[in-house]
């Protein structure tokens, strides 16, 4: 309970001005400049989910771009019933699953280098190996299991947020996550041995 109120306060303090939802209301009224403000603010989330899901940078960019364009197209009907971030995850999630139905994902050759950190060549190689192992383990999961893992462990979504993004009930999402965790755990054993 105590943690909840703390989190709420932090969320309030961290909220950018204008909020995502306010920007979307402006986009609904035809303000493309508001959309131009929103895209860089949320591009990382959209791209990261698509990238973790597909394991392919070019395909992830295509999905993330399509997600933003769909949101723009649907803007005239936008009503701020939920956080924009949840809405974005919902659109990206649907696009990922649609893409998966058409094509098997390609394994990642490499992950982009982190912008801030400057690791030594050994550390860098170690991190790349670890990331490749993680991505390979993810790719081996069924699509909905992979999405559940990505949304919880990479994006930090709660059960309720995941349910909204995946169009399922919170209970169904928790069951899905439990199955996904059980499937992923043995595949990550290699990582623990390293």
């Amino acid at each position: 309970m105590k943690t909840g109120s703390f989190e709420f306060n932090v969320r309030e303090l961290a909220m950018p001005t204008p909020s995502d939802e306010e920007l979307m209301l402006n986009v609904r009224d035809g303000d493309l400049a508001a959309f131009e403000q929103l895209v860089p603010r949320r591009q990382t989330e959209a791209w990261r989910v698509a990238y973790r899901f597909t394991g392919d940078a070019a395909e992830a960019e295509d999905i993330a771009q399509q997600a933003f364009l769909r949101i723009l197209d649907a803007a005239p009907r936008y009503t701020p019933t939920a956080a924009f971030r949840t809405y974005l995850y919902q659109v990206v999630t649907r696009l990922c699953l649609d893409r998966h139905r058409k094509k098997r994902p390609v394994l990642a050759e490499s992950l982009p280098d982190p912008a801030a950190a400057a690791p030594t060549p050994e550390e860098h190689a170690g991190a790349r190996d670890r990331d490749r192992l993680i991505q390979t383990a993810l790719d081996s999961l069924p699509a909905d299991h992979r999405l559940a893992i990505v949304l919880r462990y990479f994006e930090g979504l709660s059960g309720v947020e995941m349910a909204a993004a995946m169009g399922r009930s919170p209970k169904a999402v928790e069951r899905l996550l439990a199955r996904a965790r059980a499937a992923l755990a043995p595949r990550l054993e290699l990582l623990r041995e390293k």
Partner: protein
Amino acid sequence: MDCRTAQPSLSAYVRGELPPDVRSALQAHLRECPACLASLTALDPIAAALGQSQEPPAPQGFATRVMAAARSRGKPVVAGDWDPLHWWRMTPAPMRAAAAAMLVAGLTAGLATGWTARPATRQAQDTQAVALADAVAAYHMDYFGDAPDGSLADGYVALLAGRNGEGR
């Protein structure tokens, strides 16, 4: 973030209940603190394993490319533009229900009225046709049958049939 603030946040982290900025700070701390990482591993080994993964940033120029694509699609349809269903979407649900009920009631009343009036109209048409046939047959005026509209002969037949200036 230090261990004192990180430790109590681990459960919320595992449940996905931390705000994004606190979550990032905790992840940065976990990368540097083996003790907190061990606590997390005991709590949720998958969260600990995946949390070590580097967060890939969006590609350079992504937002610019999205905006270029958005502009190339032309002006989006905005809420103020003409939209035949816009008023319907904007109207509160009780008013929509009332409007739909009124429409159904109006259509039902119209259909019922039309259905009731139909036999009477047909009867009138039949009576008129019989009268015309009787007049032509009774007065041996069948040679006026092909008389052109508006001619004297046509007028005479109409008079006999009791049409009195009505069209045929």
